[in-house]
């Protein structure tokens, strides 16, 4: 199903932002919040994995229901998970489309990667 990826700050993301190697950060930054009706249409329940795909790549997240998220939107806390699939195009402004990236969402059984694994996928090395 087609969705719009929206990102933003959350308190749990902010309180763990200086601990990006922690399980807490992985949990809060890799949660994909969806409208419960969209979750029903996707055939998934709270905690099931979803795979988000864009022309920039794909990422696996854990789905979470959120009444406040409108139909057709997936909300993810700002961070390396959302940024793994957001285009680096800035349309001449310096600012990527952090709140309006079009994504395909589908259920998956794949695991959620750690921040270290995401950085190693682009040539980094975990400390």
């Amino acid at each position: 199903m087609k969705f719009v990826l929206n990102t933003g700050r959350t308190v749990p993301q902010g309180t763990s932002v200086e601990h990006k190697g922690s399980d807490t950060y992985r949990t809060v930054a890799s949660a994909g919040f969806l409208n419960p009706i969209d979750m029903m249409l996707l055939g998934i329940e709270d905690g099931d994995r979803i795979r988000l795909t864009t022309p920039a790549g794909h990422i696996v997240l854990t789905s979470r229901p959120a009444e406040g998220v409108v139909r057709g939107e997936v909300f993810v806390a700002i961070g390396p998970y959302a940024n793994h699939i957001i285009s680096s195009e800035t349309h001449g402004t310096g600012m990527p489309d952090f709140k309006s990236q079009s994504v395909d969402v589908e259920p998956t059984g794949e695991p959620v990667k750690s921040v270290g694994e995401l950085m190693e996928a682009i040539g980094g090395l975990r400390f």
Partner: protein
Amino acid sequence: MIEHDVVCPFCGCLCDDLEIETEGGRIVKVQNGCALAESTFMNDVRLPAPIRRTETGWEDISYQEAIKETAEILQGADRPLLYGWSSTHGEAQSVGVHIAELIGAVIDNTSTVCHGPSILAIQEVGHPGCTLGQVKNRADVIIYWGCNPVEAHPRHMSRYTTYATGFFVPDAQRERTVIVVDTRRTDTAGIADEFVQIEHGGDYAVLSALRAIVRGKASVIPAKVAGVSKEQLIRIAEICKTAKFGAIFFGLGLTMSRGKYKNIRNAIELTDELNRYTKFVISPLRGHGNVYGSNEVFTWMTGYPFAVDFARGIAFYNPGETTAVDILRRGECDAALIVASDPGANFPRAAAAHLAKIPTIVIDPHVNATTALSRIHIPCTAAGIDAAGTAYRMDGVPIRLKKVIDRGYPDDAEILKKIYDHLNGGKGP
């Protein structure tokens, strides 16, 4: 020992009423702060010593060695990028600008991926703003547009708006009308008097509709604009026009969505329209503690607030070309110095990936995602915890960050001065 009136350096609110209790050189209690402040002071885990990446892992190196190698990398680069700066004090930011000028680098700060578009709009049409003190004491209508202070600036509402008792607004909760405009029904929307839920990418259209209604042209507005009913738009325009003092705060919901800086320009022009009827102001909710300071320091020293390119020997500014994401996306820079920020986590993957291909040096108190992409990471003090310095609140008021404890780390301004010394044959900035 209890230290009073401590400033929290986490977000642009720079709340300056914290009480921090220390015991044996450790922080043991934080009072008055939000959850973000408590985590900032209480869970402050640092990188113990400078590290360098090897073929197979990481090795500890001395500060002297790390500083020398950093200077050599920057000296040998054709197109260095100096990025970050928003979580440290102005003293470090100013040395960064000196280094950029000396070596002909591009220097950019984190506003490039937060309120950079707001600055572009302000450069086009100006900034009718005011201090948060004015809002607290006078504003009877508050609009939060595309922002969620409950999550991102948790004390903004209690210190300055919804719940703050003001001189001319003694019964804040009864006398202030709070309007929230967002695509999501956020926790902030939950406590609004009026919630305006707009469709994705509809901000520009809704702002234009409000401008038309304020101008007396409601007849041209269709029944719905980006999912918002005409009745609600007319009601909101009326609340704004009849306010004694209105304040719009906007966030990344405007700067990052379709239209980007044109959304902000439209919001500022709505504020302009409203000033024909009453007093209205508009200001961005700034994210990082001292991101506003990085714009101030860059502007004093170079004439430009971010994305400054010294390659020509003079300051050149062209967002979209000299902005960090674009330079990394194009694979243009051949070395990077990252100070007090984490582009590894906060930039799109294609831009962050270039940092791993070039020699990248991180100067930051904490291990972060960019550490994994770097060649050298040099730990330093954290401004507002174990280093004093100047930071700018989101309304442009400079506030002195306090040094609460000493953890034995060098100040990042001192590290940067030593790098400058190496680059300039021992002559400091």
